[in-house]
């Protein structure tokens, strides 16, 4: 979910096409997808004359964050495909920053699970979906 000027401009909610062996791995793959989209959007914005210094990608999985930030080799993550380690590269480069986001502040929860009405309405208004 990417927002611009208070409105959602890009969103995606889908069943992952690959099999992940752990939730960490699933989150890690999703963050790679998000990075790709973010890089494209950053370039587009630059072309339109609005340069952004660093993009922050928020991730709700602490363990996926650790894998992305710390380029160490671990036995539990040795099977993850090279293409999913793209996020590591951009984080190391400094063009992208990954931050933890708490469930209570996570806008993207609406896209992944059914949630209660209060949070649903809060998320909806944060996307810029307003009553007109």
């Amino acid at each position, binding site marked *: *979910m990417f927002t*611009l*000027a*208070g*409105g*959602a401009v890009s*969103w*995606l*909610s*889908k*069943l992952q096409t690959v099999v992940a062996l752990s939730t960490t791995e699933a989150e890690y793959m999703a963050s790679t997808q998000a990075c790709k989209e973010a890089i494209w959007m950053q370039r587009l914005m630059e072309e339109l004359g609005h340069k952004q210094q660093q993009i922050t990608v928020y991730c709700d999985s602490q363990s996926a964050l650790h894998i992305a930030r710390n380029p160490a080799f671990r036995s539990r993550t040795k099977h993850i495909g090279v293409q999913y380690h793209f996020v590591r590269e951009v984080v190391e480069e400094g063009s992208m920053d990954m931050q933890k986001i708490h469930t209570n502040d996570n806008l993207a929860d*609406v*896209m*992944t*699970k*059914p*949630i*209660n*009405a209060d949070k*649903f*309405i809060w*998320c*909806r208004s944060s*996307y*810029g*979906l*307003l*009553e*007109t």
Partner: protein
Amino acid sequence: MQDCKPISTPLPVNFKLSSAMSPSNEAERMEMSRVPYASAVGSLMYAMICTRPDIAQAVGVVCRFMADPGKERWNTVKRIMRYIKGTSGVAICFGGS
């Protein structure tokens, strides 16, 4: 659907559609064949892609059962429609309120 009661969320909390809800016999399958499941989901998808990210998850869930829709799944589609009815005035606004 035009006189239905609006609802505040597209799916209830902890909602799951399972493969156990597939039609179990020919009679049920015949009944579901008269229901425009695919075109209803297609219409919802159109709204989702264009301006309504809030129903993205719900549409994703009902999409998984295109091949063999059951009665309960059809009711779920109708629930999303009820949600849409209650929030038909909602649109993406840029630049704050």
